[in-house]
């Protein structure tokens, strides 16, 4: 498929010879957006900014760009963690063209699922959520893909350190119908396969190993304009990861360990935009969104005993999925000069399918193996209707109020919950470049991520609220001052947020969280977060520089872990991000991103108790009682673009992750030296990673 797309793109490129206007057309006036919206905590990021930031392994990444923003903690290094205002990482609503996505990363969180080639813009809300959004506690990431040109073809091919990308957009019927298509695929498996085969030949006496990993995703959008007031959009997102590994050895018996994992998402939608009149327009969206995984492993070890075979074997498979079928209507109505009313509703059918099977066998010489089988299936479904209304009221020339309410319900079998979520935001334009904002929002979340770990694993499952694990609710107040003189943006924003009903895994550590009666291995608690965020940005013609600073606190209260409140895992007291770009000359740009934050919290034994025999017992006073060493890292990149004779662009990107090779602590433990003294020992994993990519766009 990739080859076909590349061929098509090249052919179209030769025909069109059009100069690129795509990027500039997408650049939005961030400053204006910030000043004009009533909401607090909103960041709009355009495609240009996305492409010029956080190019880990040569591929720009939306989630890693969001991780640099104030009020957001990144969690474990290189992962796609997004812990917003003290959130848990599983409480962010990701919308792709209005369709919720449950799984937003590839390769356990190393890459996000969003292909920046097709993304037009994204709105990121950390507070002040408008009533039209709901279903998650901590943030909304509303990603919109581009429609594609109605008159010209554009596209590009890019080859990065670990993946290749192709993008094509243009008219299907001029001025009437357009398409926008993007495809990515990693190519590590193509390289590693012969390497593994070579290694096996070199080590003929040792075990035979095999393994491969591949990820791919496809975005497609088709837009049809019926008229100036009516258009239809159809979108598809498909993403898939596959990881296989095995090891076999035959020596006085047989040993085998194999893992086969496939996971991914599919989201399809059709949206009809219709302008009823100059004062009223609406959008009807129907969608299907599914995320699923299939994880299996097998293990066998046996040896020859008196000519027979003795040993044991195990096969384990775990298939999980969640899907939504939704119908949603959103309307914009301007009843007068001082009102902008938005209203709408949605009905969503949630399906949850999880199935686990295992077979254990005991191999006895000269007898049939003794086999035991087990498993469980916890498939179920739920219905979630919701409705909202919000009104942007222009109270005075310098005073705007956005007030609204969102009503939602969730029905899971015989259990049902409902929620009324008030939303209010106010903006006071003090004078032309200075405004103040204040907001209050309540959010509810009915779906829970059943995960034993903080990392994004294929074995994680989404499950509905149940009697034992009800909905989660957050309340947040935010406010700030926003100053935008000339080319500068200076914001100072504060927030206070409480969360209740949040869940934490309280079972024995394992990759597989339980599925049947999963609630009994989770404990419910509360969270509290507050802090201040600062943004200072200069947007010059050649130089752009942003400084973000967060002073934050994040607390948890889980009675099962401690009778007293304790810091959250991602309670990073200080966080600083400095990002910048410098257009050195036409076609040559330099960019960098420096990250600093107080180390993530870890739990270490706090005390030693001397026992009867002089033996020492280590005891814990509180969870997350210590901080890892401070985290800091510099990423830098250089973009060189050259126009071809046909007017297309040939680009080279050199990116360096962790430029000064500072090994940041990934984990830590307690060690005791020869002098008897206990000390902390952290371990760093991620060194400098230089990457290189080339691209051709037209």
């Amino acid at each position, binding site marked *: 498929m990739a080859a076909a797309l590349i061929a098509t793109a090249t052919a179209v490129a030769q025909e069109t010879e059009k100069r690129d206007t795509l990027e500039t057309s997408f650049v939005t006036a961030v400053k204006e957006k910030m000043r004009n919206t009533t909401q607090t905590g909103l960041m709009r990021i355009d495609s240009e900014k996305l492409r010029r930031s956080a190019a880990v392994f040569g591929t720009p990444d939306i989630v890693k760009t969001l991780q640099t923003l104030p009020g957001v903690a990144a969690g*474990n290094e290189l992962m796609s963690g997004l812990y917003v205002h003290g959130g848990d990482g599983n409480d962010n609503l990701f919308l792709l063209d209005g369709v919720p996505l449950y799984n937003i990363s590839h390769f356990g969180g190393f890459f996000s699922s969003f292909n920046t080639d097709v993304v037009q813009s994204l709105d990121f809300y950390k507070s002040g959520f408008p009533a039209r959004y709901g279903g998650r506690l901590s943030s909304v990431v509303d990603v919109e893909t581009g429609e594609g040109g109605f008159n010209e073809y554009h596209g590009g091919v890019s080859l990065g350190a670990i993946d290749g990308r192709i993008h094509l957009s243009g008219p299907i019927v001029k001025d009437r119908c357009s398409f926008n298509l993007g495809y990515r695929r990693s190519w590590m498996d193509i390289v590693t396969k012969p390497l593994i085969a070579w290694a096996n030949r070199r080590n003929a006496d040792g075990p035979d190993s095999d393994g491969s990993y591949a990820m791919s995703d496809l975005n497609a959008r088709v837009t049809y304009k019926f008229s100036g007031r009516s258009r239809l959009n159809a979108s598809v997102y498909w993403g898939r990861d596959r990881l296989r590994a095995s090891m076999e050895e035959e020596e006085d018996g047989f040993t085998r360990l194999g*893992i086969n994992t496939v996971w991914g998402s599919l989201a399809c939608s059709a949206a009809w935009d219709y302008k009823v009149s100059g004062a009223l327009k609406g959008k009807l969206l129907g969608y299907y969104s599914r995320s699923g995984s299939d994880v299996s*492993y097998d293990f066998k070890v046996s040896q020859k005993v008196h000519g027979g075979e003795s040993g044991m074997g195990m096969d384990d498979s775990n298939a999980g999925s969640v899907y939504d079928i939704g119908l949603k209507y959103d309307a914009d109505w301007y009843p007068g000069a001082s009102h902008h009313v938005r209203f709408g509703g949605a009905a969503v059918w949630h399906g949850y399918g999880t199935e*686990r099977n295992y077979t254990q066998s005991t191999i006895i010489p000269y007898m049939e193996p003794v086999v035991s089988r087990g*498993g*469980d299936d916890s498939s179920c479904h739920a219905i979630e209707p919701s409705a909202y209304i919000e009104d942007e009221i222009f109270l005075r020339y310098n005073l705007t109020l956005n007030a609204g309410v969102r009503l939602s319900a969730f029905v899971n079998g015989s259990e049902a919950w409902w929620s009324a979520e008030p939303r209010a935001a106010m903006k006071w334009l003090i004078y032309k470049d200075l405004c103040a904002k204040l907001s209050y929002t309540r959010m509810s979340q009915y779906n829970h991520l059943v995960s034993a*770990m*903080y990392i994004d694993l294929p074995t994680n499952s989404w499950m509905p609220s149940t009697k*034992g694990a009800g909905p989660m609710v957050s309340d947040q107040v935010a406010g700030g001052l926003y100053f935008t003189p000339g080319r500068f943006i200076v914001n100072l924003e504060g927030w206070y947020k409480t969360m209740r009903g949040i869940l*934490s*895994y*309280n*079972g*024995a*550590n394992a*990759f*597989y969280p*339980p599925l*049947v009666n999963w609630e*009994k*291995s989770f*404990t419910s608690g509360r969270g509290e977060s507050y802090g201040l965020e600062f943004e200072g940005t200069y947007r010059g013609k050649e130089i752009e520089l942003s400084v973000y600073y967060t002073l934050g606190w994040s607390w948890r209260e889980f*009675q*099962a*872990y401690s*009778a*007293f409140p304790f810091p959250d895992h991602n309670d990073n007291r200080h966080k600083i991000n400095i990002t910048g770009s410098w257009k050195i000359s036409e076609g040559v740009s330099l960019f960098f991103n420096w990250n600093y934050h107080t180390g993530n919290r*870890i*739990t270490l034994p*706090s*005390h*030693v*108790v*001397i*026992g*009867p*025999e002089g033996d*020492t017992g*280590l*005891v*814990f*006073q509180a*969870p*997350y*009682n*210590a901080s890892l*060493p401070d985290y800091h890292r510099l990423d830098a990149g250089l973009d060189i673009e050259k126009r071809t004779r046909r007017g297309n662009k040939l680009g080279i990107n050199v990116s360096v992750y962790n430029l000064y090779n500072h*090994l940041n602590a*990934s*984990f*830590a433990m*307690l060690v005791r030296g020869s002098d*008897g003294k*206990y*000390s*902390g*020992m*952290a*371990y760093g*994993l991620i060194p400098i990673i230089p990457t290189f990519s080339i691209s051709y766009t037209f």
Partner: protein
Amino acid sequence: MKLLRIPALLLSALALAACEIPFSVENISEPALYVQYLASPGFGSKVMVAYASPAFSQEAAADALADMSNLSLRISLNGEPVLIPEEPQRTGNYMIFGPLAPLKAGGRLELGASLPGCPEVLARTEIPSPPAVESVTMTPEGDEEELLKVNVRLAGAPLEDSRFALRVIVRRTDRYSITLPDGTESEKEFSGTFYETPEQIASTADLASLDLDAFASVNYEEGGFIGRGGGGMLNLLTDKQFNGAEYSFHINRHDYHAGPEQEPEAGAKITHLGGETLYSVVLYSLSEEAYNFCKAAYLTNFNMLSNFGVTPPNFTYTNVKGGLGVVGALSGAVSGPITAPR
């Protein structure tokens, strides 16, 4: 444990590839008192108070013993002082008081302690009433009748957020005929007490769910402490594991045998004449504090992944304000002895 094999392999590989970064953790704790008191109505419970030195101090490095002569301890039940025996037993930096006079269920228990150089500690708990066990039945299952289904029925469904613990005590008595080389014959009876393993007590559904948590258990001796040897395994349960008013599990009808403790005389002939197995099922109600502390003690065995920052630290429970440890309570209801039907 099979589920831990893969994460352990992966994380070991990561650890081997990692680079060491020593870091300072000097100031995360001050000297404090560690308390363990699990009051159990009907039993003379003991109280342990220990001096805990900050883990990263020179004091801890030297394994130094503390001066605990000025340790002060007070316990009250519903505001009334509880008499504490004056001469505690000292082992290392532990002071063990008791056994205290048995307490009644339903009271509010408060413990305070102080030692110069340590913050004063305070902890409270409610002593729960024993669960209202209506019946315990055992039914043989399977072709060989080797499996016993045990059904524990309460007078009503447990309240939400109720916490329990369960143990099955097996009392086995065996009779033997012993013929010595000189022809002397005698009959002897031997008895032994065994505790069913957590895997036995876990319900069938728990086993199928591959949930290691179903096996959450701690070692506990009645009126004593957990995790310090002695006693038997105590399986932890919550109301979520009950089906209405019932909790069912299966145990295998083991071939328990109680035999002579010493090797018989050379040439002696021993003939097993028969035996009897009696089961006692003890269901405890646990205070929230006792349950959380026991669960944390169990989960300490699985804390490996928490060091990697990828799982919650669920092994840290304390309700002792100003210090560490637990003040909790548990009340047991004994059913049996029951002779398992054939």
